[in-house]
């Protein structure tokens, strides 16, 4: 799949933003007044910034409101509904904390659950697609949720929990990569099944229908970036988990904490780039490519 920057920015930052909102919502003794303002500013900034960036790849963003209508069948629609509900409830919760010095725990819990629901619905947009075997697994939801919860813990300064979660997320990521690497082969789709000619012998693509790449090839076949996939996986884990863990284990300073967060974000973005670049769509089969 084409790793479009808008989608990578969207999944990275909205994941972190809603992860942070979830922690803020569940917090039993949250900050109030100005202190609360800064936390919520970061969380809303990330969540909304991500959502806004996701509209950049739309052909007609001005019709985006229509995307809230089909929540009965469409995960993308559900994500929109869930995101708006989460932002609304967390907005009320934040306003109570910031302006009225009032903590309404139940509102926080609802908002936190909706925030995690948003991350889950995002993950389902990808996990539902049988056309992309690497994504078509419940592990994809686990992956997105672990990243969001871990990032939220790190951003909200919960050092001990973040340390444990970074290790768990690393394990989930490794597991996801491992199962993903054989997913296409396991799915059983080949050029043979795609053309129905497989039982007559080996099928090879002899001539494409067009002389230069079209929308389908640009969108679904991304071969160049995969060359460095293994190196990028190591870099991604290093930035996402290893460096933050080291920085958090050192004696606490704000500089180290900030560096840990920045490194984590860069690592998540790298992982998301790989999420798209490494994903192979069944359309590639028709072009004799993956």
């Amino acid at each position, binding site marked *: 799949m084409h790793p479009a920057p808008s989608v990578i920015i969207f999944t990275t930052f909205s994941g972190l933003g809603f992860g942070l909102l979830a922690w803020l919502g569940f917090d039993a003794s949250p900050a109030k007044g100005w202190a609360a303002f800064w936390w919520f500013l970061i969380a809303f900034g990330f969540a909304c910034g991500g959502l806004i960036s996701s509209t950049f790849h739309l052909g007609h963003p001005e019709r985006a409101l*229509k995307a809230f209508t089909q929540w009965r*069948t469409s995960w993308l629609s559900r994500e929109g509904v869930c995101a708006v509900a989460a932002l609304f409830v967390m907005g009320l919760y934040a306003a109570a904390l910031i302006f009225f010095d009032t903590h309404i725990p139940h509102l926080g819990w609802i908002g936190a659950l909706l925030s995690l629901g948003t991350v889950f619905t995002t993950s389902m947009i990808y996990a539902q697609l049988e056309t992309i075997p690497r994504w078509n697994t419940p592990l994809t939801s686990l992956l997105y949720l672990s990243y969001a919860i871990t990032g939220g813990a790190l951003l909200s300064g919960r050092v001990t929990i973040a340390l444990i979660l970074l290790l768990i997320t690393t394990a989930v990521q490794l597991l996801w990569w491992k199962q993903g690497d054989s997913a296409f082969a396991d799915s059983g789709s080949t050029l043979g099944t795609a053309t129905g000619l497989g039982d007559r012998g080996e099928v090879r693509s002899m001539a494409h229908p067009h002389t230069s790449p079209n929308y389908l090839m640009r969108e679904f076949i991304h071969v160049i970036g995969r060359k460095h996939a293994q190196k990028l996986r190591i870099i991604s884990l290093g930035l996402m988990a290893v460096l933050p863990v080291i920085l958090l284990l050192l004696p606490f300073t704000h500089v180290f904490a900030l560096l840990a967060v920045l490194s984590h974000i860069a690592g998540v973005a790298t992982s998301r780039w790989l999420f798209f670049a490494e994903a192979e769509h069944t359309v590639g089969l028709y072009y004799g490519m993956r």
Partner: protein
Amino acid sequence: MTSLPTSTEKKLGLVIDLDTCVGCHACVISCKGWNTENYGAPLSDQRPYGEEPMGTFLNRVHSYEVQAEGQSAQTVHFPKSCLHCENAPCVTVCPTGASYKRAEDGIVLVNEQDCIGCGLCAWACPYGARELDQEEGVMKKCTLCVDRIYNENLPEVDRTPACVRTCPAGARHFGDFADPDSNVSKLTAERGGMDLMPELGTAPVNKYLPPRPKDSWDDESILAPFLEPVADEAKGLLGWIDKQLSRLPGDSKEEV
């Protein structure tokens, strides 16, 4: 809108004959021609005369080579357009309701006024049957020429999809698969019509007829005994000419 109908009255679709298709791309051109000036936004081209030209097409023809172990390779031209799946994943993923499958005839369409161009339906289609128009920012796909097949302004002979009407080899057939006596149902039954990627459970309506087996050199013809040479040596006048010609220089050496 994006829930699929539980069943459709008719199942309109195409049969594509991989044995007959000669790979001329006439259906590609007639499809583009009809659909660029009828249903919905025109089908744009990018850099049509420049480097790396690109454009929106609703129908494309691939060419494949199939080779069984120890046999010679066979070329198969492979037209591909929307298969109007019964279990269309492209419809259910659509967040706006722009994509829908008609309950009356099973045609899968995009309402372009509602489409936000998110591209998710193209991601969900296993076959690459949907293309996002780069100029209009809306999703384009085969309409099964819905604006021809019911069009009373056209002569009856033209009330069939443009690609079917154009195909010089008669490799494309249009009809109702819900009717067991229709031309397409019969062709499918007779020739073993196949689904593409059946493992994905999309239940395509369109069917592909496999290429018929080719003649092989190994099968002895029943006429073979009558084709045995009846004489090895030339006699009479021809024999004399043969001898005289053989005397002249310039003959190939092995013959003598």
